[in-house]
């Protein structure tokens, strides 16, 4: 196992994936498998990825999140992101994808909005 990412299911159909550390072309494929699996589960919505403990994301990681967003939207669901802290958010601005994703300051807000 290279990436630590816990999965928690919340009453009401939500699931929270919480990766920790750096997401790059080495670790992102593991996150991709987790997210794709969850996005296929019937009734699961919203899918929340808590990025608050992620310290780095590269374009491969962004690609994984875009893929999960597309899969959730295709079946009428939502992908919600808890904001990464500090400089980890930078790549969303560089790629202009900060306008595409639904960001929430805290996990609590991502689950209750």
């Amino acid at each position: 196992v290279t990436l630590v990412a816990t999965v928690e299911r919340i009453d009401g159909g939500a699931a929270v994936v919480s990766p920790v550390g750096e997401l790059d072309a080495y670790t992102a494929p593991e996150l991709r498998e987790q997210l794709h699996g969850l996005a296929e589960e019937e009734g699961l919505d919203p899918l929340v990825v808590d990025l608050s403990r992620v310290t780095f994301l590269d374009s491969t990681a962004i690609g994984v999140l875009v893929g999960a967003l597309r899969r959730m939207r295709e079946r009428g669901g939502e992908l919600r992101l808890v904001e990464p802290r500090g400089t980890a958010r930078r790549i969303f601005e560089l790629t202009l994808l900060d306008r595409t994703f639904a960001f929430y300051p805290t996990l609590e807000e991502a689950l209750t909005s």
Partner: protein
Amino acid sequence: VSARSDDVVLQMPAKPDYLVLARLALAGLAHTVELEPETLADLKLAVTEACANAARHAYEGEGRVTLRLAASEEQLRIEIEDEGAGFHGTVGVLDPDLASEDGMGLAIIRAVVDECEIGSGEGGRGTRLRLLKRL
């Protein structure tokens, strides 16, 4: 030109497994020139994207990528070189998905550095990416 004692030359397998090493080397050098956290974060992205591009398309089998880092008070120079098939020979030809990932990586690199030059490596083989960031 003789290397400064803080310059870094890192040669590693062109595999995603080693991307973290490129970031660690950069972080080490950053201490010697007191980079702003934002600048360091931007450059970590640049070296990761450049090394990931090499890992993705430079070689059909096993290969190596070399990262060179050189800092002065005014600028940071970053060079990423592989001995693979060459950048222009692969992008947009073999696999459209890979090409678009390469394109995104390059766009990110160009966005965070002041100069970005793509050419062939030693002896005309492979790809050499030369980046310059003014401090």
